[in-house]
């Protein structure tokens, strides 16, 4: 979706405030709890990482701007818990459980030991490819216009723009479908864009590299 999360190149978003590198990892204990709750609830297997990103993106324009970073995480998590039926709207309103979650959900509760392993191991997102890649490094491509209300990683600023495939990263889980619960792979490419192609003639001469899946791309004429 082309919402307010998709900020590449936007103006008027305020001042950039650098820091020293010495600040705490979390701004507060509540932020730390929201971070950990999001990871632990994700481990229940009811939704994918892409669905979590999409939940935060669906919060609405006003909340996107009004809420702080971990407030958005909390709102996104709450939305996913309710939509997946892990908790009901009534339970969220009252704060009290009407009963335990279904056995198959409780069975996947993340333990401290599994949490430590998840941090150390992660989960790869590359999959076996079902077909040969359509594009090769050095090839000129164009990003298709892609106005979907669903999840996508085809950044707005690159849509319709010409770039050059620099690297084929292999076949990776495709976010647009993974967000809907379909863990299927598509070829993923690193595509380089000249800044002037993206931002016009007054842009400084830099290059922007964007990772784009095959369905986002077409051959440049």
């Amino acid at each position: 979706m082309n919402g307010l999360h998709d900020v590449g190149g936007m103006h008027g978003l305020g001042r950039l405030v650098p820091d020293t590198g010495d600040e705490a990892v979390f701004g507060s204990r509540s932020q730390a709890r929201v971070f950990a709750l999001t990871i632990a609830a994700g481990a229940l297997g009811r939704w994918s990482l892409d669905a979590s990103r999409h939940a935060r993106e669906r919060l609405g324009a006003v909340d996107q701007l009004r809420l702080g970073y971990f407030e958005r995480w909390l709102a996104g998590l709450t939305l996913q818990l309710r939509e997946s039926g892990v908790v009901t709207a009534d339970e969220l309103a009252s704060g009290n459980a009407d009963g335990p979650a279904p056995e198959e959900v409780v069975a996947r509760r993340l333990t401290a030991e599994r949490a430590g392993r998840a941090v150390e191991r992660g989960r790869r997102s590359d999959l076996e490819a079902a077909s040969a890649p359509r594009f090769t490094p050095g090839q000129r491509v164009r990003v298709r216009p892609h106005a979907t209300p669903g999840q996508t990683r085809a950044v707005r600023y690159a849509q319709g723009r010409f770039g050059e495939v620099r690297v084929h990263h292999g076949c990776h889980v495709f976010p647009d479908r993974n967000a809907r619960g379909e863990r299927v792979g598509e070829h993923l490419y690193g595509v380089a864009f000249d800044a002037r192609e993206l931002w016009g003639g007054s842009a400084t001469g830099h290059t922007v590299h964007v990772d784009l899946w095959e369905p986002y791309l077409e051959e440049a004429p």
Partner: protein
Amino acid sequence: MTHPDDHTEPPSEFALEVRALESLLVEKGVIDPAALDELIDAYEHRVGPRNGAHLVARAWTDPAFADALLDDATAAAASVGIGGLQGEHLVAVANTPEVHNLVVCTLCSCYPWPVLGLPPAWYKSAPYRARAVADPRSVLAAFGTHLADDVEVQVWDSTSEIRYLVTPMRPAGTDGWSTGELETLVTRNSMIGVEPARSPQAAA
């Protein structure tokens, strides 16, 4: 964006909401608070930019490791026991006298956790994400970094599960330094690409 600190009394609305949700999920049987403690402890105490600094300093002192890191950063990091969540597919990009690299995630806040820990507030902020791709030199200037005009800037937008690590240039005046000494010069910001590594003078 900034938050009211919820250590203050009374607790903020955010703090109360977080507490209520955790308590509900524990009651539902789907969250174990010990797992939350473990996750927080991991990123507060074990997984952070010292890991990335180790890789960079090692690359500065060991050309074969530098080549391995640029060839397959995931494997090179794994060879020294570094890897995991949000770093399953690592790519290292090297700064040189001709090329300067900068990493951003314009859509959210993707960041190479196993080598840098969790991202700082500015990296997650809309102004950084908006400007890094369109006007990277002004972003660098905000961090006090001014590149010569002929240096080519390469910006990496983390739109997939590939995670990027910048290897800054080794500062002058560090001949004969050990890997451990060099690590102290490799800042988190230098591995995102907003600053060079610290000079020995700045570190003294």
